[in-house]
């Protein structure tokens, strides 16, 4: 790859985009206008919010008049100003009476006879019909929005107040509990009504403490009697820290969304647009390599992505500063809650994180856009892209999610969390610092490779619009099937396995009642192996390939030395895998539920009728099913990618994915690479099945060995196993076995490896000679 060409293409694409009015509008003009416009509408809305006055219907309020000792509650169609936190809030609640609704007046007045929970039983039967009539009237008013809440003081409430006061003054137990209490009616389905109810409640609470205070004073009890002390929480966070906590959640999400949007439109224009305008073919006939074209375009998209994000940030910052300044003048936003602009350091971190993120988004967008035939089709791909990336960016915003090794490995989420920690001023351990960046870079490379792949596929570059007819397409799939599955079919098989597995695991967990016994375990394993893994792979092999034997690597008779070597690798890898699992468990502790599940399986296996039955269930069946699926169908499909190591690694990642627990996933991925290599080199599935089966049965045998060594320290096995609990291989054993396993794997090198057509072509290209004729 020549960087001179990349730079040439980059400069041309930049110039081209800058001459495009649409692009300029999206990246430069839109952000400048967007936030001031949003700001304007926000101000309009706040005005609406402030001007809003709620109406409260008060029934039975008159009985509160003429009690001279009672603090004032109602005052001239409003609640008393003293009952509000700020006197100007008094106008936000307007009081109306039953008289204001002549048609319903009669029914509303019946509310005075409403029963409350505190009221004594043995009411007259007629109150029930009264209650229903009142409820109807109140509901009518609330539903039509004529009032936001109804406050009822039932007849007898005054007596209750008097009784309480009397009991206090005379220092004797009262019987006020039997007397009615006020009721607030509201409609929780209506936000406005709910808000009004809260306000009214607040007012009544204040009034209640006023009443208490008056009563206490009258009975010569100090007011402090009701509240001997006050709780005074003290927030030790400094203003900047509080701000950082807020910004750390908002800013990464905001910037990343704009980085994605900013990448998408230029990407569509640079790929699908060029295809549409016919200039892509012109470029493809120039000496520029596909890789150079992809890099040139990628850098352009990246530039636009970061500029869009930065401009939006700047525009938001300027508008935000203005808005914040204004908001801090509104009394409702207390000074201590007022936001200020994010600190400079956080902006620096944001800028630094923007580079890998925009690279990742650009590569993704470019690959999607390369797939599209036209700009219109390109636009369709934005939605799926958003659907995939959004949850990953939203997850870090949910409370309680913090950066740890597990989620630092999740693409996007890890980086967002790292960024959040940095903005908050926490500097994580180097491991947590590097992991998200490494994962992002890896994803970037994969996405770039995918984009390059799109540019190398003529079916993508010269796709002609063909009517999509599902029936014909299915016929075409079966009629024109290849000898082995295509790359896409391999990926589809993995997707189907994952989907079926999801549904079956949910169904199994629902039907699984009571403790796990051997029968239930056997059923679960058989169902998940046969239905989730074996069936999709076998069906797809039969329907989609012309040579099932070749697809599943069953055509060749395995060589004895390959079988021996596979068995050797299985035995020698075991110590390595056990050590690795232990190490992973140290770094990322096993969850309690996982451990309980593992214990449950272990005890269920102990209930097997015979040791060999357990081996059959745990080792032989999975080895057969999983090998047919992953080293058979999936790997055969993925090998069309043109490089065996890519195929091996991708198939083992898929193999890891279908395992339920994290530790199993990592373990399976590592073993997947080993078995995949054996499959490619030996060209036969049998060594793989042997290796896999032996590996699984060793887990079972280990438990027996462990028991033996722990019982007798002089046992021959003690030389390789440490006598500690849980039982572990000695480090020396691990190292020796690891080396020996590598040597055995090395013996597979140059075996009867049969390269695919794509692999031969790739090799021929790298050597620059003519391709092998007979493929």
């Amino acid at each position, binding site marked *: 790859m020549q960087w001179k060409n990349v730079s040439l293409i980059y400069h*041309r694409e930049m110039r081209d985009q800058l001459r495009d009015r649409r692009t300029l509008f999206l990246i430069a003009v839109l952000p400048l206008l967007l936030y001031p416009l949003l700001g304007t509408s926000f101000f309009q809305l706040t005005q609406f919010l402030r001007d809003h006055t709620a109406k409260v219907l008060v029934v039975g309020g008159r009985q509160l008049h003429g009690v001279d000792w009672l603090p004032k509650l109602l005052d001239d169609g409003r609640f008393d100003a003293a009952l509000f936190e700020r006197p100007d809030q008094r106008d936000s609640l307007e009081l109306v009476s039953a008289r204001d609704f002549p048609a319903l007046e009669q029914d509303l007045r019946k509310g005075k006879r409403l029963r409350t929970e505190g009221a004594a039983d043995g009411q007259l039967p007629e109150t029930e019909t009264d209650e229903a009539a009142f409820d109807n009237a109140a509901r009518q008013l609330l539903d039509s929005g004529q009032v936001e809440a109804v406050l009822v003081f039932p007849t007898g409430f005054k007596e209750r107040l008097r009784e309480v006061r009397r009991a206090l003054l005379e220092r004797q137990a009262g019987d006020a509990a039997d007397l009615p209490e006020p009721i607030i009616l509201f409609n929780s389905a209506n936000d406005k009504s709910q808000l009004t109810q809260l306000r009214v409640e607040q007012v009544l609470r204040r009034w209640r403490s006023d009443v208490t205070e008056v009563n206490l004073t009258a009975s010569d009890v100090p007011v402090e009697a009701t509240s001997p002390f006050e709780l005074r929480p003290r927030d030790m966070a400094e203003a900047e820290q509080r701000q950082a906590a807020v910004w750390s959640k908002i800013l990464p999400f905001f910037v990343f969304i704009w980085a994605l949007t900013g990448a998408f439109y230029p990407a569509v224009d640079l790929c699908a647009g060029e295809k549409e305008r016919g200039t892509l073919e012109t470029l493809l006939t120039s000496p520029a390599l596909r890789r150079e074209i992809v890099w040139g375009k990628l850098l352009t998209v990246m530039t636009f992505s970061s500029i869009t994000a930065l401009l939006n940030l700047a525009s938001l910052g300027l508008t935000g500063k203005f808005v914040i300044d204004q908001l801090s003048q509104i009394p409702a936003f207390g000074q201590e809650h007022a936001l200020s602009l994010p600190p400079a350091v956080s902006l620096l971190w944001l800028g630094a994180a923007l580079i890998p993120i925009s690279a990742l988004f650009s590569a993704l967008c470019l690959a999607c856009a390369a797939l599209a035939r036209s700009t219109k089709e390109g636009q369709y791909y934005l939605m799926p892209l958003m659907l995939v990336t959004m949850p990953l960016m939203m997850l870090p915003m949910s409370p309680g999610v913090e950066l740890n090794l597990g989620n630092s490995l999740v693409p996007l989420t890890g980086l967002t969390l790292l960024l959040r920690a940095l903005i908050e001023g926490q500097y994580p351990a180097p491991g947590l610092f590097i992991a998200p960046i490494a994962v992002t870079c890896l994803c970037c490379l994969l996405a770039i490779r995918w984009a390059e792949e799109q540019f190398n596929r003529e079916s993508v570059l010269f796709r002609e619009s063909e009517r999509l007819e599902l029936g*014909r397409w299915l016929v075409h799939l079966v009629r024109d099937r290849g000898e082995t599955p295509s790359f896409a079919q391999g990926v589809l098989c993995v997707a189907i396995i994952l989907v079926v597995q999801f549904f079956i695991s949910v169904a199994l967990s629902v039907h699984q009642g009571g403790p796990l016994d051997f029968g239930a375990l056997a059923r679960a394993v058989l169902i998940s192996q046969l239905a989730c893994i074996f069936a999709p792979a076998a069906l797809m092999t039969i329907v989609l390939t012309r040579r099932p034997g070749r697809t599943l690597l069953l055509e060749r008779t395995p060589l004895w030395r390959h079988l021996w070597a596979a068995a050797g690798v299985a035995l020698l890898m075991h110590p390595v895998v056990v050590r690795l699992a232990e190490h992973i468990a140290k770094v990322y502790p096993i969850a309690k539920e996982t451990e309980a599940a593992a214990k449950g399986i272990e005890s269920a296996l102990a209930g097997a009728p015979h040791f060999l039955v357990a081996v059959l269930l745990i080792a032989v069946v999975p080895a057969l099913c999983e090998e047919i699926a992953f080293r058979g169908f999936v790997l055969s499909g993925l090998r069309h990618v043109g490089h065996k190591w890519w195929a091996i690694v991708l198939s083992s990642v898929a193999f890891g994915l279908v395992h339920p627990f994290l530790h199993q996933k990592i373990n399976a991925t590592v073993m997947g690479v080993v078995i995949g290599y054996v499959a490619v080199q030996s060209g036969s599935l049998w060594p793989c099945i042997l290796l896999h089966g032996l590996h699984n049965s060793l887990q079972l045998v280990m438990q027996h060995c462990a028991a033996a060594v722990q019982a007798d320290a002089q046992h021959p096995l003690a030389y390789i196993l440490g006598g500690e609990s849980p039982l572990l291989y000695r480090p020396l054993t691990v190292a020796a076995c690891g080396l020996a396993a590598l040597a055995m794997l090395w013996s597979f090198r140059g075996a009867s490896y049969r390269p695919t057509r794509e692999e031969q072509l790739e090799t021929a290209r790298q*050597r620059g000679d003519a391709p092998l004729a007979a493929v």
Partner: protein
Amino acid sequence: MIEARHLTKVYADLHRGPFVALENLSFTATRGEVYGLLGPNGAGKTTALRILSTVLQPTHGTALVNGFDVVTRPAQVRKTIGFMSANTAVYDRMTAWEMVEYFGRLYGMEDEPLRQRMELLFERLKMQEIRDLLGAKMSTGMKQKVSIARAIVHDPPVLIFDEATNGLDVLVARSLLQAVAELRDQGKCIVFSTHIMREAERLCDRIAIVHHGRLLAEGSVEELRDRYNQPDLEEVFFDLISNQEKELATGNR
């Protein structure tokens, strides 16, 4: 200069199953000649030339361009050819000068030789007045000129023209044919595909008649006329094609 060996291209097609666009096509074109691919629409001409320009991969067979294999050394092949077709458009948001300069640089030309070469080309193709005109504002004829300048800016020994006169008016088509003839006289190896008899007759030193992806006959206009005992190329063409259609029909039966 160009040696196509058993080029075969099979496309997957939803309706028809595997569709053979090219079948075992072999031919050789040398320097100083215009080799014509003559065939009706859908004969496989564009597929063949796209394979020669390395944007498509053959299903079987290969081709050598200037000694480089199109399958394994595509980058070297692209350096030594100039490719122009009805599908290769010019950039809308670039001027004629910028466009040709851009491709000159992609072909690895140094600043000064590139400038001299471009001045020469712009003069010879009478493009000085569209020098600073954006592609979007050009007429079809102007765009075609820019495409020619773009294809020959690096002075390649091999030139491939795929239906290059499609959609051009008589005047522009005529000047394009003249330009191709001049290039031949400069000693270039030229492959020229068309479905227009007169163009083939006038321009091509040797002609291959292609139909349904197969080479039916090859030779100069005179040779073809004599071999098939017909008064002109059009009759030869029609004769060959209707014979093949008949053969295919009986074969299918």
